[in-house]
């Protein structure tokens, strides 16, 4: 009896110790998750804090007198005249009328408030509506990027305001009168890159990314899945296949910039493909994504229960039928998930694309797979290295767009897995 009691006592003591251990372990887990979450929150707060203003543009709404004499223009349909005409003067005059204290001698300071591209906007409007000549129109133009920075970040130490005291007081007055306003930055989504931050947009980079991803997807998914099926189902198990398997795993661990070097040496130098085009970017990213897709597809194939295979073989299905009718449908959710994760990785990849020239300054939105292009992460890289502070908020905004793409891809992966699994 005494023995039993002391044993129960021992168990109770060890129980206490066990529970303490368990509590400690749980605390470690919660701490780890809390740290990860905090890092995520800080990251998001920083990016959103910096980038949210990137989604705003500053505009000037002016009553422009389209005086033909002032503009040296008497026929708005004449291309030659349009090229020679002065479209800045009406803008300056319109602005001068809005600011009471201004005199003719402040012309250049007033001009500093207007975006250099505003005259182009005016010319295009006149070209489209020649009958507007010699009338007065209310039109909206982009403000100068210095005004943009001042309006959004006045009082922020990090931003240096490049406006004189006089200009600042004008901007304040104009804001009060409602001439200067901020609104949603549609320009950011409609333009390619630009030297002027207020005109710079991500459309070129987004289209470049989509084209590159398309090439990557149509190459890496079929090749990766076919390789995985062959290795898993048909290949004999010998030294050669072992060697191939080890090397696929090695490839998955190769730094991505090496793939960029390979792409430069093989696709551009050896095959003579053009630089900075989505096709080459897609090929390089395919090389980088393939090991990920092969490994995850093989894991998905391996996870198909052997009983299903046996059942099919037992009825007399051939090898090919077993694979196509049973293994592949069951492995598909896993394969798709792996591929989408691989694609998401490729979408965020910068380093290999720098080497094949996708880092060039490209203003136009690419029209095809063989047109010069850049991609979103490279655009972020370019803008964040820019000395102009107005580009920093554009970079953060572009990061937000990139993150939105990545999140929707991951959500797609989860949704596809759930949907396809429910069928079985």
């Amino acid at each position: 009896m005494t023995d039993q009691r002391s044993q129960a006592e021992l168990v109770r003591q060890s129980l206490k110790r066990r529970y303490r251990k368990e509590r400690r372990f749980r605390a470690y887990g919660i701490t780890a998750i809390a740290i990860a979450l905090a890092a995520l929150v800080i990251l998001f707060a920083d990016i959103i804090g910096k980038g949210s203003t990137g989604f705003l543009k500053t505009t000037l709404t002016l009553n422009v007198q389209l005086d033909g004499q002032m503009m040296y223009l008497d026929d708005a349909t004449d291309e030659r005249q349009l090229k020679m005409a002065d479209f800045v003067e009406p803008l300056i005059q319109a602005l001068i009328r809005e600011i009471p204290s201004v005199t003719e001698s402040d012309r250049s300071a007033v001009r500093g408030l207007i975006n250099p591209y505003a005259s182009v906007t005016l010319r295009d409007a006149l070209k489209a509506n020649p009958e507007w000549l010699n009338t007065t129109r209310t039109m909206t133009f982009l403000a100068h990027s210095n005004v943009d920075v001042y309006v959004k970040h006045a009082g922020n130490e990090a931003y240096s305001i490049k406006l004189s005291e006089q200009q600042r007081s004008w901007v304040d007055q104009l804001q009060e009168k409602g001439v200067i306003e901020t609104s949603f930055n549609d320009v950011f989504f409609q333009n390619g890159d630009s030297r002027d931050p207020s005109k710079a947009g991500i459309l070129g980079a987004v289209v470049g990314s989509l084209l590159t991803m398309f090439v990557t997807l149509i190459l890496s998914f079929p090749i990766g899945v076919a390789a995985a099926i062959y290795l898993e189902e048909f290949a004999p198990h010998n030294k050669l296949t072992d060697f191939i398997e080890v090397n696929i795993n090695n490839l998955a661990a190769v730094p991505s910039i090496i793939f960029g070097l390979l792409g430069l040496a093989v696709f551009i130098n050896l095959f003579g493909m053009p630089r900075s085009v989505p096709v080459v970017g897609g090929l390089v990213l395919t090389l980088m994504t393939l090991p990920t897709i092969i490994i995850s597809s093989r894991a998905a194939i391996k996870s198909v229960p052997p009983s299903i295979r046996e059942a099919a073989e037992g009825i007399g299905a051939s090898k090919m039928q077993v694979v196509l009718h049973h293994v592949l449908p069951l492995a598909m959710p896993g394969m798709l998930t792996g591929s989408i994760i691989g694609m998401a990785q490729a979408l965020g990849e910068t380093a290999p694309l720098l080497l094949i020239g996708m880092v060039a300054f490209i203003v136009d939105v690419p029209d095809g797979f063989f047109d010069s292009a850049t991609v979103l992460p490279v655009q972020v890289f370019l803008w964040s290295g820019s000395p102009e502070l107005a580009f920093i908020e554009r970079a953060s905004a572009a990061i937000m767009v990139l993150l939105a793409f990545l999140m929707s891809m991951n959500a797609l992966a989860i949704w596809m897995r759930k949907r396809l699994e429910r069928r079985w």
Partner: protein
Amino acid sequence: MNTLNTTVTGEVQMPEENAVPVQEGRPAETVIEEGKTVGRPFADDAKFKLRNVEVFYGQERAIKNISLDVARNEVIAFIGPSGCGKSTFLRCLNRMNDSIDICRVKGSLRLDDQDIYDPKRDVVELRARVGMVFQKPNPFPKSIYDNVAYGPRIHGLANRKADLDEIVENSLRKAGLWNEAKDRLDATATGMSGGQQQRLCIARAIAVSPEVVLMDEPCSALDPIATAKVEELIAELSESYTIVIVTHSMQQAARVSHRTAYFHLGHLVEVNETNKVFTSPEHELTESYITGRFG
């Protein structure tokens, strides 16, 4: 490896080739003579003629020189302790062992006097003739209809939808599942109970009208009621099919089979009419096993 056995008798016994580990209640000198089977292993009207069959897993000899006939339209049960090679032997009959790399089969195995292991033989055709039901119910994760229709589809047995419907209905009827399944042919098969799934697997196997059905412990994952249904089914099927069944339940062997074969450590020890095996076994190992002294 054998330390557990020593605790009873206090002796260390190492099993050797051709020697049976000594166990309590049985004379230690029982030795199986290789290739010698007592009873009636051969039949006049043989569906399978199996002579001097040996199976190797790498270096290990899993089946040791077994000769046996399986008669047309008989139900033969394979019994024996775990690891005695009965499943391995069964799987030789439709070459299911082919997918195991290290497995080699020697000897002469003939189905209707054609060599099963002829390199030129088409495995797909063989398996269409020799169907198989597995230990665990393994329906495809598809609808009930598609499960049964799969075999006829891949073998091109039905060209029209109506023919296929008929095959599916007949197979399900034969498997005694028609009444339970007819209203939910489109429902997924994995939603059925274990017993229903196993009967579905049997329906799937007979849908391609095989000549032989191999069953590898078909009831080991089922409850007694489901087991009884499957056993009834086996009795009905035996009228038109040759059935080879591996089982761990001696009662089941006694209930469903015409002949029973007792396997021991890769040897075929005894084959005889089922009631003879269970009432008056000729070999002492068989007797020890069926009286529950080991196994």
